[in-house]
């Protein structure tokens, strides 16, 4: 499905959800949000209409020269995107349980290994170096609160 239409429909849904939640709130608190809800709905409808019009024009003038904005984007590489996204979601979900020091190197090494970017030995080395650099700057130097090894707490 076309990304523009997806975003347009999602924007309308979000605006309507906000509108339903605005009931019962003091008038002063929803003055600007109410205005913005209608602006979002109006613009989303206009964007969808613009997209449909553009598609109709493109069909009518098939083969005619396209503007830079209409140049087609490279197709989505679904297998890579799916695997990469799933890896990132697993990384986020596991951090509070297994901790940064376990999950980060595993995530980096597996990512590099399965994508065949580097050999296993190089993947381990690069994974360890990136984990150490982030730990050194964010956790050791700046003392930012990241769960390192929750199992030991």
């Amino acid at each position, binding site marked *: 499905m*076309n*990304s*523009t239409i*997806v*975003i*347009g429909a999602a*924007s309308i849904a*979000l605006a309507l959800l*906000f509108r339903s*939640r*605005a009931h019962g*709130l*003091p008038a*002063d*608190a*929803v*003055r*600007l*949000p109410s205005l*913005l809800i209608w602006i*979002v709905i109006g*613009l*989303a409808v*206009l*964007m969808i209409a*613009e997209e449909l019009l553009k598609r109709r024009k493109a069909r009518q003038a098939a083969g005619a020269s396209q503007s830079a*904005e209409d140049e087609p*984007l*490279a197709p*989505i590489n679904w297998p*890579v*995107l799916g695997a*990469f*996204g799933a890896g*990132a*979601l697993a*990384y*986020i979900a596991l*951090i*509070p349980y297994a901790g*940064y020091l376990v999950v*980060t190197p595993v*995530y*980096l090494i597996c*990512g*590099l290994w399965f*994508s065949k*970017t*580097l050999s296993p030995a190089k993947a381990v080395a*690069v994974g360890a170096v*990136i*984990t150490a650099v*982030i730990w050194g*700057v*964010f956790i050791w130097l*700046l*003392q*930012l*609160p*990241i769960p390192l090894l929750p199992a030991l707490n």
Partner: protein
Amino acid sequence: MENTFIATGLLNAFTPTNLMFIVLGSAIGIVVGALPGLSATMALALLLPLTFSLPPETGLCMLASLYVSAMYGGSVAAILLRTPGTPAAAATVVDGFPMGARGEAGRALGISLSASLVGGILSGIALLLAAPLLGKLVLLFGPVELFAIAVLGITMIATLTKGSPIKGLLSGALGLLLAMVGMDATTGTARFTFDNINLYSGIPFTAALIGVFSIPQALSLAEQSRVKEEVANRINDRILPRLREFLQLLPNIVRSSGIGIVTGVIPGTGGDTASWFAYNEAKRFAKDKSQFGKGDPAGVAAPEAANNAVVGGALVPTIALGIPGSSSAAVLLGGLMVHGILPGPTLLTEYGEVTYTLIWAVILSNVPMFLLGLALMRVCICVTLVPKMVVALAIVALSVVGSFAINNNLFDVWLMAGFGVLGYIFDRARIPAAPMVIGLVLGFLLDSSLAQSLLMGFGSWSVFAKSPIALGLLLLALLSVLQATPLFRLLRRRPERRPGVQSL
């Protein structure tokens, strides 16, 4: 008062810690800029959490120097790989790569570095001169005028960004709507929080910034991970231009810097617009136009001076009015906001010391950029060859750690990931993400100034018509929206058609 702030800012910027962070920011900026596909905004967003535990001045010194240096770093990949390191370096490819191909890669990089130095310093000086003047004007502004400025800022950013103005406006409106989540400052009521305690203080814009600017780049790098970059040009020649050549290029560099500063001041237009504009002007002014596109040094100097000059220009409305001139400036403003410094006139009064330290950091960071640019030139060649999957995975790890550090809360990490997915879909739909982020940043200012204005006007919206400044600014905002509509295009075309009609 300003002189005191200017002097204090200079002294602050010269402290050993701040100087060290300026050098660190410059090194990171050059390296990130040299990596194809990564933008300065992404690097700023990723490193924003680093500033949490630093004093505001120090954090801003690092972010400002990173911003300045990443602009130059983009030219390294443009000249050596024929791939712009940052979008702002796209125009540099046209003449930079042919120069490298005929064995003058060092000369092209040297010209790029020198032009970036001049552009950066001139724009920093322009910022130092313009910000206090505008700041004095802004002191006359009350909530009514501030509301009008915020409306003008968001409409200009939304309509002047590339592509469909409707998409830009929708992006900005969505950002403003999302900024309404949280406690209402006037009534103390929780709005649109869905009974989630994590949303009571609003959507953390740092998580949104990291997600929108970093995750889409990580995803697209992962998608292209099979494409291998190869260094097409090697550095075998002299790097710095000779004085005679530099003086010949100087008028072009100064003109391009002026173009960059002015373009930067206009919200919504960034380094890429400025560099193409400067490139075209350099070509127009050139005696021999035939060499453009074949490796003319003027074609490297112009875009590089312009894109570095954008930095100071973009910070003028950010500092003076609290309206970020670009997405990178919005992240810098975010760097102030994490320390409780809100956009608006107080930036040049109450927080003058911090703001002037930032201005001086913009000027001073050009020196380490130049020196490190020379020293790291050959290292940058190796950086450009780092596999894309390594960079993509590192971006995700940094994004997760950074967003977790905001409130020590996993909710922010999921929010960051959600904004990341949204940013990716925005990219696919060619919807600019910058207006949404700027809407998120300006939402509070807009909401609070509207509430105060209506209180002053006893609930009547006519309060905006009673202030000539606010009325003028709101009319300008309306004009900026109207000029993007088909109606305006129709009106513009009509006079052009008349002669044709008469001839019939």
